[in-house]
């Protein structure tokens, strides 16, 4: 598999570059390297005792900050600083998914970011409960899934910050989340970011909450990851998780992504940006294995789709959207990618026998309140038994907001006996 240089390396390099520039006394925004994402050089506060210059790099909606100087933070509301700290406000009580795969040590003594302890999470990826994913909610009161009152009114705060590091520096957390507890007393906010590949050193992450309704939050913080992204498990650390108010902080804008931009490269690739979550039509007719190892086009895995063609739901057709975030049918505000730099979407495909017919391959086209900004596709396509590359022309398309990164659809009329086919290296270029 033709893997990209992991983002964190790019980020680190850019940060290094920025720091270098800053230390030389220049404060102008940096020009971008052709294949790299833009860098936002922000003068965060003009009111603080000192100017904080922050280089921000968005990774899947999460801001990774490298801070220099004194913070302009005016208010703090702690979730966790140290074990038994009197001002910790939430408890790590909401275990989800494969809870048997998770161990937590809230008084891990080695190498805390600050104070004497940090939180150590060990995720085994054994899929003990068969879910394929696991995670923890920090809740108040403990174990509250919305059936009791107890959320905090965090109005007045405008970001969540935390520090994190990975044991090896390649651990992938699928998403971090603020709010989202449902039930009788639901949270007033639900915002999530990810996936994020952690670095080996402590790094600060920020979830921008400007404009969010924080009047009732019982799920203060959560993380989720999956065996798909960490097939051999993962160990990672959190510290200093807290809400803050920073004056002058503005609502985050999406930045145009650099190219190439991957939908799917390999099962465990952290550069995969969309999730095959949007199942349509006869969803019961479909099976997908994103870690198929036999004869991938490149790398170690490809995607295997099995379409039975039995019309389980009576629709006579079926398809899958690769979405961001998962299950986003246009209802998620502020999500998706700006792929304006893309000229085409390419992918490789082959049929098990040859002749399998896919009626449409496309990107975009999801509607809803926050829809895709455009749509483009090809089809019908009769697949060959050998790998073949296909291209969707994106010239002239408005790709400023893409939530449906890729999609296929087929039907029983052209595949009455079903179809097995493979996809690999789905990528915007």
């Amino acid at each position, binding site marked *: 598999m033709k893997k990209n240089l992991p983002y964190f390396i790019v980020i680190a390099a850019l940060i290094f570059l920025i720091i270098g520039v800053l230390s030389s006394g220049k404060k102008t925004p940096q020009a971008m390297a052709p294949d790299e994402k833009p860098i936002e050089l922000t003068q965060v506060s003009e009111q603080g005792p000192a100017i904080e210059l922050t280089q921000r790099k968005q990774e899947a909606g999460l801001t990774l900050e490298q801070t220099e100087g004194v913070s302009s933070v005016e208010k703090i509301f702690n979730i966790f600083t140290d074990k038994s700290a009197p001002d910790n406000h939430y408890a790590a009580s909401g275990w989800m998914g494969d809870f048997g795969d998770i161990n937590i040590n809230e008084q891990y003594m080695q190498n805390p970011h600050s104070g004497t302890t940090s939180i150590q999470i060990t995720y085994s990826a054994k899929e003990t409960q068969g879910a394929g994913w696991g995670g923890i909610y920090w809740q108040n009161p403990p174990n509250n899934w919305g059936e009791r009152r107890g959320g905090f009114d965090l109005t007045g705060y405008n970001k969540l910050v935390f520090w994190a590091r990975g044991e090896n520096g390649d651990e992938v957390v699928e998403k971090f989340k603020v709010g989202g507890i449902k039930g009788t007393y639901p949270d007033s906010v639900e915002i999530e970011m990810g996936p994020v590949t952690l670095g080996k050193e402590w790094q600060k992450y920020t979830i921008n909450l400007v404009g969010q309704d924080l009047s009732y939050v019982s799920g203060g913080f959560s993380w989720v990851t999956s065996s798909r992204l960490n097939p051999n498990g993962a160990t990672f650390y959190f510290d200093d998780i807290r809400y803050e108010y920073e004056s002058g902080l503005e609502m985050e804008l999406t930045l145009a992504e650099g190219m190439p931009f991957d939908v799917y490269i390999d099962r465990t690739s952290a550069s995969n940006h969309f999730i095959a979550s949007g199942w*349509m039509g006869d969803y019961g007719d479909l099976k997908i294995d994103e870690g198929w190892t036999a004869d991938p086009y490149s790398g170690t895995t490809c995607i295997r789709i099995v379409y039975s063609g039995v*019309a389980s*739901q*009576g629709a*006579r057709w079926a398809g899958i959207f690769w979405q961001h975030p998962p299950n986003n049918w246009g209802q998620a505000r502020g999500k998706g990618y700006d792929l304006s730099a893309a000229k085409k979407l390419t992918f490789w495909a082959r049929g098990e026998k040859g002749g399998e*017919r896919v*009626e*449409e391959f496309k990107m975009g*086209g*999801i*509607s809803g*309140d926050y*829809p895709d*900004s*455009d*749509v*483009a*596709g090809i*089809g*019908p396509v009769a697949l060959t038994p050998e790998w073949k590359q296909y291209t969707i*022309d994106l*010239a*002239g*398309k*408005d790709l400023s907001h893409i939530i449906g990164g890729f999609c296929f*659809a087929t039907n029983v*009329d*052209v595949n*009455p006996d079903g179809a097995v086919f493979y996809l690999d290296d789905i990528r915007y270029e």
Partner: protein
Amino acid sequence: MKKDYLKFIICLLIIFQSGLACGQQQELQDERVERVPSTIKEEGEFELESLELKRRPADRFDFGDESSGYLTIKAWEALGKKDWPAVLAYTQKCIELHKDEAKKQQDSLSAFPPQDKQSAFEVLNNVGTCYFIQAEALMRQEKLEDARWAFQFIIDNFKYAQCWDPRGWFWKVAEVSHESIDKINKLIRGEKIAEEEVKPKRPASKLVLFDPGSETIVDYAKYGKFENVGTKDYHYVITDQAALARATGEGIYPNTSSVRKNPGYIALKGSERLKGEHWDFLYTDDMQANFYKWNMATEPQGVKQFYIALVLERAGLIAQAIKAYYAIVVHFPKAYGWTYWHTPWYIGPVAVHKINYLTRRNPQLGMKLIGAKIKVENSFDNDIRNDIFICTPGKLVQAEADELIPKREDLSKLKIVQRIGGKRIQLVKYENGHWQLLVEGKPFPVRAVTYTSTKVGQSPDEGTLGNWMKEDFNENGKIDGPYDAWVDKNKNNTQDKDEPAVGDFQLMKEMGINSIRVYHHPPKVSKKLLSDLYKNYGIMTIMGDFLGAYTIGTKKLDENGNPISDSGASWYDGTDYSNPQHKKNMLASVRKMVNDFKDEPWVLFWLLGNENNYGVANNAKKNPRAYYEFVNQAAQLVHELDPTRPVALCNGDVLFLDILAKACPEVDIFGANAYRGKEGFGNLWGDVKEQIQKAVLITEYGCGAYYEGKSQELAEDGQAEYHQGSWEDIKYNMAGYGAGNSLGGIIFEWLDEWWKAYEPARHDWKGQFYGPFPDGFMHEEWLGILGQGDGSQSPFLRKLRKSYHTYQKLWQ
């Protein structure tokens, strides 16, 4: 005391019928359902005064093979005759024997099964229908509370049951139960059941394009390459997508961006007006919302482009609509969809005909399509995998108005190379391959109608259909429809002094009709009447035999022990075209028809079948080869008995045309029942010409005068437009024009028949199946080019619809 007893019996009956205990908890139901019938059986007979129910000994009922299908048919018949004991006996037998299986089938479903899997749910459908018949019986007896409860039971327990209508569609039993409950609630509250209010589904809006594109006629050669034109490998390769998108403008492939920048769309995005499925917007007048929804729809590109074009057309943006239809021809000529019956719908050829129609009807645009042809090989089956599309996209060009009207070739200069029939009635073929029907040496374009004057309230489903050729309800010695019908000029549903009886025959003559279609099966055909129709009104008769369709006919045997005019099969077994006895019976029926009528001068030609290839109550769809071989045998017999007239076949559209082509050399005229839209019949003429080189007759075409959400006037406009477009297509393919194989058409039908959808005494407005009609649905009870007003003066009152006058002009 008696009252209490009656209440108890009513309760028992309801339990008996519905399987639910009156007002009891669910857990009590099964016990009571099982117990109550046996209680009744022990009594042997029970009487329910208000329902006039009297149980007869079981041997007085014909349970046949006790299949759910058989029992349901018998129950329908009993309902029509208001034979309440029989209704109870047949429905209850069906329920007792098949309820458990029906429940299993119901529980296995989470949605209505697709049509091609309906046969697997036959028991559910029949048991659900039997419960429905029971509820209907209660309602007809004005036992409203009980009926409401029984309808609700269906909704609660058999919501996926559907009832097969012999005309070719299913209706959802629970859905109609809901409507009945609504009606009952109104009756209980003492409200009048008024005609449905004309309410638009969505308020009208005007569509204004934000980006109409830089070119009215897009010069595709500038933006890409046409590869392999005229072959199966045709493809248009875009070389400059962005520029092409600028040229085409909003909503036309590949421009998917402009609509998203349309201020109208931005203003509506996220609003209530855009909530709902895009299909539900299609025939509404909210053109803005309709256009935006279809631009955002996740349908295959060809399908989506077609409906965007349709929205543009309906919004009056004809030039943009033509551009959109042409985008299909260029980019998606191989696109397909599916009809209600799950037969393929080829979008590319339809787009070509849409363009031809729109350019012809809008000469002010000054454009025409030249050289475009999309031929679909192997298209006469339901398998789209074997289809081969030979595509020539042609070119949209500027044109003068007089170039848009087809020119007629001078036939007098052409030699006749083939003659079929006798001297008086002759089908001739010219040297250019064109066909013409001659009667007494003169061209006879078939301007026919399916005629029947069914009285409101009658229904063949319920065994109450009378014989219009004999009915004389006003007992004045004249047959009602033909001679006593009067035109309600002022539409007040009353016969005023200036509205004398004129009769349908005279009205047909004044319209320009020259023939009607009749089948010879019982009820008995009146020779006297049809002879008078010919002698005094100049109208001939196309005489038909159903050839086993719907197992219509009579089981009564003739002197040789054969059914008089029937295949001999029961409805639920269906006619089997490989069954020697069935074939023998049907040939006997055909022989009888020809022998009975061949000496009548008013018979124009013979017609075999009525879309038997759709397989309703026969196996023609399963075994088309056997069917068409039998058709040929029947046609051969007709020729032997009457060499003086041609023989036509009535097919369901062009399904199995390729098989027919090989199996039916004896058939002279290919007839097709076709409902393809106001543009006419598309590739039908060319397909037939290519496959069988025979003459073509459209044996049924038409459109309901009902348009959901619109006034009757607008509905009639829609119907008239449909008929005009259809007839123009028929005309422009007659000898001297176009394909040259058209002989004419048979309008379906003369007069509205109120029994076709649901309640025979009510003019049901609901659509039976979706299709290319003004509001997107077929309204079978509104197909008449004449209406029956409010039904109170049936079978006499005639309301002349706009399409009647349209034909008067077209046929002058």
